[in-house]
């Protein structure tokens, strides 16, 4: 900014807003949702001719239409929330872990490997062993980019992103190998029954949901109430400050990403054992990336993530419900709809954090 000449004040400029009142924040968000609904309604009507109100109603029935759908909503939220929880400490530290997908996949791969290798062990032993394998695999997968970042300052965004592809293909390779001459990989319910999470109230995933909710509480305490959590926040605010305060930044970084990767790896295990009952490179539909949005929208607060992960699943259900309404409403349209809704939601955060100031007179800006 040294050679700024006589600065002409722009027509509009952006000022950071502090302390927007809670009510106003939520009003802005609700307004964004309503606006998004109107835009998507008009768009879907234009493309498919479906009555927009029918679309809105199917959005709601998509998640709540029947008791089974409510259960399904919880089932989808479980891994997404788990991944969001995993990303929270990394993002809080401003370590851009884009590798949740890969960490989840290697966790699932390791858990599946254990399940197939030790399938004769009793479930009470096998399932915790699978969980441990998932945790470790995820942690290792996460910590590799963290070590490179800590010691050689490599770009963790690219590194973690690339690790996803390796994980995806490792899973594809393993599935191909394990399925052998049959043309599909069988379900653990058929081939490794002991590896399947026991059913509570007829659903295998309820235990997974309970584990994830426990993680929510633990992660909240870890981030808000412990020294580790405080160190993460300081490193995130400014690495230099952290160094000045005597924090070992490298150690904090590696420790935090070990934790982050482990939780994502655990998600892979939970999916394999309690949700999918099989290994697949397409498991959880790219939730490793959706979880980034979940974590951000919640400002890395684990409890808020329950809400944001619900929201993402709600819109996903809505989109798939719309896409089954008529022949013109394909899944691609549902992606467009989710995209528009997300755009409005994320866009609304701008109006929460910033204020637009329009030029009133020709006063010079005192910068």
């Amino acid at each position: 900014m040294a050679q700024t000449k006589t600065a002409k004040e722009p027509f509009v400029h952006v000022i950071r807003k502090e302390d927007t009142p809670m009510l106003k924040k939520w009003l802005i968000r609700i307004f964004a949702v309503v606006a998004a609904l109107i835009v998507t309604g008009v768009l879907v009507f234009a493309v498919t001719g479906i009555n927009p109100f029918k679309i809105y109603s199917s959005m709601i029935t998509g998640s709540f239409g029947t008791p089974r759908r409510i259960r399904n909503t919880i089932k989808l939220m479980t891994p997404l929330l788990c991944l969001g929880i995993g990303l929270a400490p990394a993002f809080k530290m401003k370590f851009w872990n884009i590798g949740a997908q890969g960490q989840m996949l290697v966790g699932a791969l390791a858990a599946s490997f254990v399940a197939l290798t030790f399938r004769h062990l009793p479930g009470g032993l096998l399932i915790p062993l699978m969980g441990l394998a998932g945790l470790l695999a995820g942690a290792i997968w996460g910590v590799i980019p963290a070590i490179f970042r800590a010691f050689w300052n490599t770009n963790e965004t690219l590194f973690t992103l690339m690790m996803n592809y390796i994980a995806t293909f490792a899973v594809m390779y393993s599935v191909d190998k394990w399925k052998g001459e049959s043309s599909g990989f069988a379900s653990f319910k058929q081939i490794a029954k002991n590896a399947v999470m026991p059913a509570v109230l007829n659903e295998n995933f309820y235990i997974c949901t309970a584990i994830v909710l426990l993680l929510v509480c633990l992660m909240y305490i870890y981030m808000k109430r412990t020294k580790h959590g405080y160190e993460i926040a300081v490193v995130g605010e400014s690495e230099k400050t952290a160094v000045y305060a005597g924090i070992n930044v490298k150690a904090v970084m590696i420790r935090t990403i070990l934790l982050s990767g482990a939780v994502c790896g655990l998600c892979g295990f939970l999916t394999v054992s309690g949700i999918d009952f099989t290994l697949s490179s397409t498991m959880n539909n790219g939730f490793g990336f959706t979880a980034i949005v979940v974590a951000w929208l919640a400002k890395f607060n684990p409890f808020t993530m329950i809400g944001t992960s619900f929201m993402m699943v709600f819109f996903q259900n809505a989109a798939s419900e719309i896409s089954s309404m008529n022949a013109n409403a394909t899944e691609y349209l549902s992606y467009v709809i989710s995209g528009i809704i997300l755009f409005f939601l994320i866009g609304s955060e701008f109006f929460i954090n910033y204020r637009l100031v329009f030029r009133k007179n020709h006063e010079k800006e005192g910068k």
Partner: protein
Amino acid sequence: MKRITALILAAVMIVLGAGLTACGNKNTDFKVGVILVGDATEGYTKAHIDGIQAAAKKLGLSDSQIEWKYSVPETSDCANAAEDLVDKGCKIVISNSYGHQNYMAEVAPKYKDVTFVAMTGDFAAISGIPNLCNAFTKVYESRYVSGVVAGLKLKELVDAGTVSKTATPNAFDANGNIKIGYVGAYPYAEVVSGYTAFFLGIRSVVSNVSMSVQYTKSWFNYEDEKSVANALIDAGCVIIGQHADSTGAPTACEDAAKNGKVVFSVGYNVDMLPAAPKAALTSATNNWEVYYEHAIKTVMEGKTLEQDWAQGYESGSVAITKLGTSAAAGTQAKVDEVVNGIKNGSVHVFDLNTFTVNGAKISTNMVDFSYLDFSGEAPRVVYQGQTLETVKNGYIEESVIRSAPYFSVRIDGITELN
């Protein structure tokens, strides 16, 4: 501020209200649920959509009586989709991809009054789940016929001298056989059965042929199929057959033909003429309408659907697509003759007199129909099936004991490249 709040609240109420009223009207009519691995943009799924729509029209079902789930991956999403369709009141739920079968098997026992059809699946009849069904067509019959079409073209080329040891030396292997290429998806019985039928169809017309099969390890991959076809064309293959879903191979043939190469394509599932007007001879295809009409009608009438169904030319369940302009003169007459032969039992595709294995004719072919798991040290049985003789009256029966193909004999004259 208050006014804005009120307005927003009102808007939300309207949306919610509309949502709740719409929940109330439930259609109690007979409904068909369909789970598709792709959508109408992809040949394999489109053939199923067309079949179901045609069947529904014949049975007088309206559009609203069919619930579609597009692009459902072979994960627990399939189980969710199936249960969702049951929720919507579907009495028959159909899935169109092999990998859906496991999830259909998971859901079926929970809803005993609903019929679940896992198309192309292979374990319904031995699974002990009475409301789980499989179906397949005898597509090897139409592959054989498409081979005859290719054979007639090859004969025309040889007779005209277009293909000869002097004009196209690269088109002959060391034993003087004319080279044929095949783009296969996976080394499974379904593919082996298909390419063997195709090869035997060609060889019923031209005796000195050999075929190379290269697998892409994917059911649908345009780029891979195209590059594999190009490699086969470069190796001298005159005919390129395929068991993969894209237009990759026909496009490669068309490009090569435009550059003066002598090469023709036989496709699968859909008419390849739009992609390769010059190179495409025909495609082997399924006519799913026949089965879908039967299955939906059976369930509509409250009867029990058989757990395993396979038919071919006898009911019009398989066919070849319109012949291309490049097809040899007189092809249609020969095709009609062969089809009639298949129908009346005078032609058997896997006739033991037409092929050898390791230089000798075979007289027996036992097949274990168990559903196996290969993920451990040794294959283990998931669902126990019988081990049965598939040879009958001098030929190997295919898709009779089980609808999903089980012919996987590697015969002389065909080489798997990978």
